[in-house]
């Protein structure tokens, strides 16, 4: 089984610990992970803002980077959804505009082998207890793309429920969007902030120490809003919880409150 990590640009640049956690976790489960360095962005920011043509080279790049692997695992529900839902659309539109079959072939190869991390653990590795230890109260926010485009269902919760020491707190209005939405946060700042404020109010109400999701992009917005309000709730990617063990604990990040490089 040749498995490649698709770390995604946000994780590569802003949340390297999430990528490191995926590597640690998968290796602990006996999977040899490769990181093809020619990988890049999935193209979601460009595609969702209307610049479809700018995403075509990135579809080809994805194909080149991962063509030698059986599985592509990514710690991002929205990037996995981009590949699975939108690469075929990009290919179909390119074909309709008279461009060749290469994008169609690239999309056809990418779709079935691309997995969001929790899907890969539950569906491919068939594991729900990953041997994690995380002695904290945690609430789970199911991100929109993970929930509705990928249909992750209760996979993340099943994984979290097996983590020793972890107490899962119910989040009211969990399935409502946090208000990030990529460029939406910049194009409609007032509505995005209002949605973020409501999400954070619900998060604080749970009394949990940490909020976890399958997507750091949503956590960027949620964490930024929490930090501005002075809330001590830590945003933490589910990979970092699942990678945490008694011998090697991970305590979540403090990236939003420390610009001095305390994140290693």
């Amino acid at each position, binding site marked *: 089984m040749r498995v490649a990590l698709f770390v995604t640009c946000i994780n590569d640049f802003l949340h390297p610990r999430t990528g490191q956690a995926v590597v640690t976790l998968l290796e602990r489960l006996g999977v040899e992970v490769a990181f093809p360095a020619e990988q890049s962005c999935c193209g979601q920011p460009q595609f969702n803002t209307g610049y479809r043509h700018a995403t075509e*080279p990135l579809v080809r790049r994805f194909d080149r980077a991962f063509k030698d692997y059986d599985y592509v695992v990514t710690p991002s529900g929205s990037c996995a959804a981009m590949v699975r839902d939108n690469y075929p659309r990009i290919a179909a539109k390119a074909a309709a505009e008279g461009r060749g079959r290469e994008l169609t072939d690239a999309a056809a190869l990418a779709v079935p082998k691309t997995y969001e991390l929790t899907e890969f653990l539950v569906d491919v590795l068939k594991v729900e207890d990953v041997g994690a230890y995380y002695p904290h109260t945690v609430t789970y926010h199911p991100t*929109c793309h993970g929930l509705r485009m990928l249909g992750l269902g209760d996979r993340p919760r099943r994984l979290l429920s097996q983590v020793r020491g972890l107490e899962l707190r119910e989040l009211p209005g969990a399935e409502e969007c946090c208000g990030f*939405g990529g460029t939406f946060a910049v194009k409609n700042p007032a509505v995005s902030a209002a949605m973020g404020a409501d999400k954070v109010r619900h998060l604080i109400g749970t009394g949990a120490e940490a909020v976890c999701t399958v997507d750091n992009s949503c956590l960027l917005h949620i964490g930024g809003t929490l930090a501005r309000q002075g809330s001590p709730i830590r945003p933490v990617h589910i990979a970092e919880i699942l990678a945490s063990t008694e011998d090697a604990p991970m305590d979540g990040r403090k990236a939003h409150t420390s610009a001095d490089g305390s994140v290693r």
Partner: protein
Amino acid sequence: MNGAYLGMPAFPRAAAAATRDGRLRANLTHATHTIRDKRARAVAELDDWAQLRAAGAAVKDRTLRHLDHYLEQLEAAVTAAGGQVHWAADAEEANRIVTELVRETGEREVVKVKSMATQEIGLNEALAEAGIRAYETDLAELIVQLGNDLPSHILVPAIHRNRSEIRDIFLAEMGRWGRPAPEGLSDSPAELAEAARLHLREKFLSAKVAISGANFMVAETGTLVVVESEGNGRMCLTLPETLISVVGIEKTVPTWQDLEIFLQLLPRSSTAERMNPYTSTWTGTTDGDGPGTFHLVLLDNGRTDTLADTVGRQALRCIRCSACLNVCPVYERAGGHAYGSPYPGPIGAILTPQLRGVEGALESSLPYASSLCGACYEVCPVAIDIPEVLVHLRERVVEGGEVTRRGTRAVLRPARGHAAERAAMRAAGWVFDRPGVLRAGMRLAARTRRLHPRRLPGPGRAWSQTRELPAVPAESFRDWWQRTRGTGTESARQGGEGT
């Protein structure tokens, strides 16, 4: 288009104002959450909902593919049943036809049952210019009309008003339009409903002309269908001498059997009822029963152009249930008026820019009035993939491209005001396709991270006004991998690629 909506600010500005209106947000949040929970329960009662939804989408798609055929069948059936069919290519033509039809009767007043198509074309304003007064008879439409207001929801046009506001409107305005509200009117629902009932009853019994919309038109028999809760529509459809129905051409279904699907999908999605209280059907004219004269005005107004767009045409499946509004987190905060048309919420964000074109400031901002969370697609009873159409229309805004205008192919230029964004997106695309450049950029950002501002200028300012910026870590994942694992999987081709 409806003149009342012209001059509306672009969506983000209007929405920002709405988010600061505490009472509006409280009214909207309460109403949308109540109805969304009820809808979820009503839908969960049916174990074949997924099949019904697929069937609804399939019937609509098949009908739209052969719309010319079914419209001709409909016209022949309506005519054979004693009705008269008029074709209106746009709002002006529809308003002219209706105005002339009312003038021929010699009447100066008409009653109306809620019709979004007449809102879309601004019929009330056109009639007023011709000296004809139109009385809205749907309770919520009455509240909107008396309040000199605009509808803000498809099903509940006065959703933005609470009971005490409605009482104040009734007391202040009813007398100017007919029977005044009783003195000492309270804000209890029963008293408000009774005041409206007495006020409207006088209109129903005196009106000679009625104007209606329709939820469906059955091509095989030429029958029109209105689905409602109050029974006011039935009064309009049966009591006057002349009935003029203004209906969008996409409301056609081929047969009565098709109604079986939609009469299950619509009430549960819309009011969360198993069945709506009043379903009225009318076919042409019948001697001694109901209106003696019946006119059907078939409205295009951008619909056939929308039909020509292979991605966007699914918006024409819409049965106006408003389920997408009630689950939309953006609608809940922005309110219906921000969408600047009678079609608010997610469906409005894709329908309005297609019917009107994307060139206007409002229209070009509507496809961006969504976080693409997908809740609207999930609840849509005819499975309109609203996020897909939103992204499709965003491309039309920023890149231009081929569109159909009044049946002719035209090439649209990219919208103004996106030049900086376009350049940034292209630059980002260029960098992302060159991992070596990407890595160098990330290293530079990491080395200078202590110098990064805590507040951003330009478009990023909107972000840092309400949210802390993330700190840039000292080392990217890519560099960590290379430092700890070596360059084993780094492709030798990478250096020369994409240059």
